[in-house]
């Protein structure tokens, strides 16, 4: 076994680690959640990551987005993700796509992946991603943040959780987020993704919610 994954052992079996190295994941977004998800999946040791984001870094990203830095302002986020991947774990095949996800390109972007990670920042894009995952038959690992709060869930094809947690007309309030909320949420998603890809049981449609202000934890549905 490659020494770089030796500390995975115990928490994961050698067979599970080997299985993860055969998996391809799609990360939708390379911002707050996406940057940390990519970092965690690279270090965990999946086989390949495809990541898409059409945005470029701006100063307001610096309080929380791992891939951002003063030097990277104006740089495409997908490009920064590819540079980070090459630095952290060149053994993981990494494909960066500098495009926003749309109804049209979503199915093609995620096709062939074993899991899709939601690192988006708006409800409409999440509905588009969930539809594409259902059509392509790919499990979706949802994650979202606001302020001190984070939520995550595994959504297997056919599960309507996205419609239940974002009812028609639901409106996002403030865009506030603190430095520690995205990595906390990404950690929940990465853990769920690891369980799924390693073939361990996951509960589809169960929403895990964390409130870091009041240090409370809940699971719904």
């Amino acid at each position, binding site marked *: 076994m490659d020494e770089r994954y030796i500390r995975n052992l115990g928490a994961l079996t050698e067979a599970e680690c080997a299985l993860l190295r055969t998996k391809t994941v799609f990360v939708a*977004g390379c*911002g*707050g*959640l*996406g940057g940390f998800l990519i970092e965690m999946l690279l270090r965990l040791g999946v086989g390949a990551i495809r990541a898409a984001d059409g945005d470029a870094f701006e100063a307001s990203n610096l309080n929380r987005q791992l891939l951002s830095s003063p030097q990277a302002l104006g740089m495409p986020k997908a490009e920064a993700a590819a540079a980070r991947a090459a630095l952290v774990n060149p053994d993981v095949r990494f494909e960066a796509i500098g495009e926003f996800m749309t109804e049209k390109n979503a199915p093609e972007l995620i096709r062939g992946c074993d899991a899709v990670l*939601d*690192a*988006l*920042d*708006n*409800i409409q894009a*999440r509905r588009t991603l969930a539809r594409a995952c259902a059509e392509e038959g790919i499990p979706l690992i949802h*994650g*979202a*943040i*606001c*302020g*001190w*709060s*984070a*939520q995550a869930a595994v959504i297997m094809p056919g599960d309507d959780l996205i419609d*239940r*947690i*974002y*009812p028609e*007309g*639901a*409106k*996002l*309030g*403030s*865009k*506030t*987020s603190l430095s520690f909320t*995205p990595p906390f949420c990404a950690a929940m998603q990465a853990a769920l993704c690891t369980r799924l890809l390693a073939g361990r049981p996951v509960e589809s449609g169960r*929403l895990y*919610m964390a*409130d870091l202000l*009041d240090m409370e934890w*809940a699971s*719904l*549905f």
Partner: protein
Amino acid sequence: MIEVRFFATLREGRGKITQVPAAEASTAADLLRRFEIPKEEVAILLINGFHSKPEDPVKDGDVISLFPPVGGG
């Protein structure tokens, strides 16, 4: 009494839990109006743990949980 539990940003200015006399609300929407919460700012509404809608009835002893949309990334 009806117990109303607020979560995440809905706690701001309202606290975590409050009690409302059952005679003062016949639906969950009545409770939203009482606490000045627009419907579009509630993503998940549970009545006694069950996924519900604002127009659903509420009664004495019910526990209502209100969660805002969490959608940033």
